[in-house]
């Protein structure tokens, strides 16, 4: 087979992603839904005054510390300063950046899990999630977090210690929920790797280290930022926890926000991974994929564990876990149907 074929398909997946995100240029102004402009305020303040408004945020009449993690705002301000373009155009171009990063990140992650063609399938499947498009088609920190997550997951699945720790640092400072999801997945990966290494008679510390290191780095980074901003570590005092922001996730809602193909293939992939895990046949990338799926499911049903915060908002993060697993399922389904095809041919040729 032509070695350039996967690359051609990957480019097609990138083009599809760019087309999907092109609606960011539809209106006379960049999207305003989802608090896009509060980040512009901090970036603009940094540009116009030379200082980041750390101790006097613009929100709700001002006067409070700027708790929101700052990486996206720094990036925004840097891009405006470097290019001299308007905030509005830079916001839209940031969305183009997300549109490029998403299929490439999912390609790397899918390839690490199940090979070249699973990577390509993963890059395509990334364009099917309504939630992923909704959150990455607007200039938002969520978009940056979601664009970085598959890349961070790739490093975790590869067990690249330094890159995993760096990813944790960047993702946590890009977006809080993405950070929570990343460190949750890293911890679960570390924990499952302890079990796998123990059962396989391998060195437990070495096998679980990348996951636990990324978890520790991400957790300390956020706690450090939170304490720096508000001088306490009372995370549950945040309005989002106090008022239980978010809606319950039913199967119907999950279907509506996921789509048929991703949900069906994701469920099949989950079953395949679970089966291989029970047979003790999973390698590290598979263990990581399973960990990320389990954390995603936990997050969308966190009301069952007494948290009840952002359940529906975590659906998009479950999709990040689901996409490479769905690609794995598609690859396995093709492989299986290929074997059936072969058998039918053999029988027909014998019969003939």
């Amino acid at each position, binding site marked *: 087979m032509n070695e350039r074929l996967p690359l051609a398909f990957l480019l097609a997946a990138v083009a599809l992603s760019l087309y999907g995100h092109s*609606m960011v240029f539809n209106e006379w102004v960049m999207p*305003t839904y989802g608090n896009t402009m509060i980040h512009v305020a901090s970036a603009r303040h940094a540009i116009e005054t030379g200082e980041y408004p750390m101790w006097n945020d613009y*929100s709700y009449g001002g006067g409070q510390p700027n*708790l929101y993690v700052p990486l996206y705002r720094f990036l925004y301000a840097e891009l405006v300063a470097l290019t001299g373009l308007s905030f509005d155009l830079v916001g839209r171009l940031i969305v183009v950046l997300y549109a490029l990063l998403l299929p490439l990140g999912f390609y790397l992650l899918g390839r690490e899990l199940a090979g070249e063609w699973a990577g390509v399938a993963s890059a395509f499947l990334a364009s099917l999630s309504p939630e992923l498009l909704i959150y990455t088609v607007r200039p938002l920190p969520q978009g940056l977090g979601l664009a970085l997550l598959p890349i961070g997951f790739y490093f975790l699945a590869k067990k690249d210690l330094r890159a995993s720790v760096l990813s944790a640092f960047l993702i946590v400072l890009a977006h809080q929920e993405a950070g929570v999801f990343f460190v949750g997945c890293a911890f679960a990966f570390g924990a499952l790797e302890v079990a796998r290494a123990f059962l396989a008679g391998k060195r437990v510390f070495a096998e679980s280290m990348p996951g636990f290191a990324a978890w520790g780095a991400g957790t300390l980074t956020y706690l450090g930022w939170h304490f720096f901003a508000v001088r306490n570590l009372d995370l549950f005092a945040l*309005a989002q926890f106090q008022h239980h922001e978010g809606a319950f996730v039913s199967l119907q809602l999950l279907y509506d926000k996921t789509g048929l193909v991703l949900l069906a293939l994701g469920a099949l992939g989950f079953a395949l991974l679970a089966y291989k895990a029970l047979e003790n046949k999973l390698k590290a990338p598979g263990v990581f994929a399973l960990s990320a799926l389990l954390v995603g499911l936990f997050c969308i049903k966190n009301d069952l564990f007494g948290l009840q915060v952002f359940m529906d908002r975590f659906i998009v993060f479950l999709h990040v876990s689901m996409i490479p697993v769905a690609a794995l399922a598609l690859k396995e389904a093709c492989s299986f149907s290929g074997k059936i*095809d072969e058998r039918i041919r053999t029988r027909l040729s014998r019969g003939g």
Partner: protein
Amino acid sequence: MKLKVLPLALLLLAAWLACSDFESARDSTLPWMNPVVLPGELEAMAWVRQNTAPRAVFVNDIFGGEFLMGNSLRESAVGGDWAIIPGVVQRMHDVQYSFYEAETPEQAWETAKKYGAKFVWAPQRQVFPGYEWVSVNQELFDPQYFRLAYSNPDVKIYEVLE
């Protein structure tokens, strides 16, 4: 090379279903592209910059307030990150029901004063201060309490009188 029919059929089926999912994803996303604010609100920013103090507080809705802070570095009684704002729910409730849906101009004026607002943003569209979408009741802006300071076809800006 032998063409394998079943895997090809499977891929074609997945691609066909995926086309439908892709269109559905785009359709679900389109409403999020609605900017809500009006072009005249952006046009008003030049006046705001020239005639109000940096970080002056406006009574505004969430969309208009965030648009204002991002474009002019002024503040809004509602809008932004609510994570650590003391009394944030009461604040949204007040701006919704005691300002934009106030029963009298005096009640609206008192609410504006309560939150340190020097100006009011009154756009020609529905506003969302935190609970529900409502039209701006222009009858609230009695000259005894508010002075019209700026106007274009999309937005009026009133000064809150002392």
